[in-house]
């Protein structure tokens, strides 16, 4: 009888340990999410104004970096991006300066949460720090966000 119980007991102990480990992983993930939410909340109260800026490159195929075609879904998910690239925030008066192969075509006020979302979606690669080129109607754009 004693011998027959051992495999079941071991299984139960193993299950307990696995459950504890899984619960620990979930707790760490929730902790990271809570920290992120706290940071956004603290920044929103700091009085700073994060911005979205869009830089347009020369009208030729980029030689480096990934090219991401912008879709209607992108514009629907990020109205500020829509407003700068093809809406009322496109600002030609700021185009008179800058190097010949690139120019900032405009900017829009965004919240800290939006700035983070735009950075995550269109910001530079975390390892190479190379920005993806966003392609829309034959033009190529880079998205720059500020986090003051």
């Amino acid at each position, binding site marked *: 009888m004693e011998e027959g119980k051992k495999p079941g007991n071991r299984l*139960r102990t193993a299950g307990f340990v696995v459950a504890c480990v899984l619960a620990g992983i979930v707790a760490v993930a*929730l*902790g*990271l999410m809570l*920290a992120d939410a706290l*940071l956004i909340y603290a920044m929103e109260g700091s009085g700073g*104004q994060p911005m979205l800026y869009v830089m347009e490159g020369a009208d030729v195929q980029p030689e480096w970096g990934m090219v991401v075609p912008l879709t209607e879904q992108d514009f629907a998910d990020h109205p500020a991006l829509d407003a700068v690239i093809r809406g009322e925030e496109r600002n030609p008066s700021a185009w008179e300066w800058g190097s010949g192969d690139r*120019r*900032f075509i405009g900017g829009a006020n965004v919240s800290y949460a939006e700035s983070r979302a735009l950075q995550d979606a269109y910001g530079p690669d975390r390892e190479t720090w190379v920005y993806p080129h966003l392609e829309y109607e034959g033009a190529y754009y880079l998205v720059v966000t500020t*986090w003051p």
Partner: protein
Amino acid sequence: MCGICPVCAETGENCMEPDKKRLIIIGIIAFIGIIVLVAAVVFGFTTIVTLVTGVDGLPQELDVRVVGEEDLQNASVIHLTDRDLQQHPVLATAIRKAGSDSNVLKYATVPMTGAECLVLTESFGVYTRNAPILEYDGVYYATRVLLH
């Protein structure tokens, strides 16, 4: 057996109901504790890093000072619009502060991030060798960037 704790699993004895409840309570407290601990560590670390290095690279300042028409000479002049100031809050703040300075030499310095510096340089040449003079509402402003 309670079917949860390893002690019961090993001994094969019946776990007492209060012990089972205590184990569950300890588990919940540990779960919440890990969440709070991780959030506090990440939040604290990020805050310290932000205070030391800035959110977006080393802190920089935009220095704006009012100049007279006699100082223009052959400098390029960029005429700012209301939309320019709306899209560049750092420049708007600096110009507003410089304009309201009661000293004879009217100037203002405003902190900015690396991304804001890039945008202002590409749009208005603030961090270039021969930075253009900015004009807004009939007043001329010379700009430069201070690095710390």
